[in-house]
């Protein structure tokens, strides 16, 4: 009988304890809260000042963090640009303007013939080909982006070595045309310069294939290519002499 009673007590002990604690929790919390409020109330004016000071400090830290991030971004960009620059002699130029005519994609650079820039010089950024110089003045120059409808660059599919002509269309995407219908090309393929034409050296990254359209009747294929260079956010570019 004793063993049965002990067993039953053990069985109901845990639920009873849980219930008791749940019931006691409320008044205990109330008492503790009252004590806490009683202790905190005299400190309120100081707390408000402390809060204001901390908020100011937080704002300052947020600003510093944003500045540090911007510095880091610029440093990364400059390092990438320098890595490209170390492989080939060139001039780093800042973009000071962009064509206001939407169908014409050109940028204005702060370097010119005085700095050694030449007509048909190559313009690249850390990510890939930007375009070429079409007008060079003593202290400024005008570069045509590869997205300009007048831009033509001989391109090559890096993986399969299929060649075509990359032309601008006046918006953010280019077109690779003059390919056979059975061209070995797929979404995600990298397009590089073919080195034909005497302006662009071979092997520079132009962009990545977005879509491929094949026309079996005409026996041709076309690809939409997203430029590798960040043409919408150009700040500094590297100008190289023509190949």
């Amino acid at each position, binding site marked *: 009988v004793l063993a049965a009673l002990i067993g039953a007590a053990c069985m109901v002990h845990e639920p009873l304890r849980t219930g008791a604690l749940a019931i006691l929790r409320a008044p205990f919390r109330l008492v503790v809260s009252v004590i806490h409020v009683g202790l905190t109330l005299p400190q309120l004016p100081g707390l408000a000042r402390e809060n204001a000071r901390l908020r100011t400090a937080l704002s300052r830290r947020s600003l510093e963090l944003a500045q540090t991030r911007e510095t880091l971004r610029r440093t990364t960009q400059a390092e990438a640009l320098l890595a490209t620059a170390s492989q080939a002699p060139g001039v780093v130029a800042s973009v000071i303007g962009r*064509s*206001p*005519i*939407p169908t*014409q994609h050109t940028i204005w650079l702060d370097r010119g013939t005085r700095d050694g820039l030449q007509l048909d010089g190559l313009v690249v950024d850390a990510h890939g080909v930007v375009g070429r110089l079409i007008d060079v003045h003593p202290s400024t120059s005008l570069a045509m982006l590869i997205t300009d*409808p007048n831009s033509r660059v001989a391109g090559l599919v890096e993986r399969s070595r299929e060649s075509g002509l990359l032309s601008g*269309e006046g918006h953010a995407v280019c077109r690779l045309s003059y390919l056979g219908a059975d061209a070995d090309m797929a979404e995600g393929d990298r397009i590089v310069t073919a080195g034909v034409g005497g302006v662009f050296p071979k092997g520079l990254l132009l962009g990545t294939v977005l879509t491929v359209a094949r026309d079996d009747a005409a026996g041709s294929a076309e690809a939409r290519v997203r430029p590798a260079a960040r043409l919408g956010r150009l700040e500094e570019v590297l100008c190289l002499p023509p190949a």
Partner: protein
Amino acid sequence: VIVLGSVAVQWLLCRFAASAWWIPDCPWVAVVLVVSGWPRHWLLPVIVAGWLTMSWSVAAPVAVLTWYLMGGASLSVSAAVVDVTDERVQVLAAGVGELVWLFVQCWIQEARVGPLYGWMALHIALTMAAVPVLRRLLLWLHLLPDVWSPPEARRIAGA
């Protein structure tokens, strides 16, 4: 002043925008407003705007200046027939002018792809929307003639 200011604003906005498609054609809007205000003195603002825009043009720069001259002249002639100080007429003139201008540009550059028409529609809409904004700004700055007050105010002034 108005045309030079609009060109400066246009260049500034284009410098910091990802694409010029997102920026309304401020010089053209300024030309529409100025020629509407002073129809007889259309040549100087048109030449200034055309020449400054032409300096950027890669393909057929002369076409840019020609377009501005034709657009300005058309607006000046229209002033004898319609009330070009009416805001709705100005918005329409800016939209039609920009539409023709973009089609000419695309034709010159042989750019005829689907996405381009979407961008054109956006650009034209932005240009048309810029007319009332710039108009109110210029009226607030007292840079436009008094006849450009709202119709109600003109009626009161007439009475």
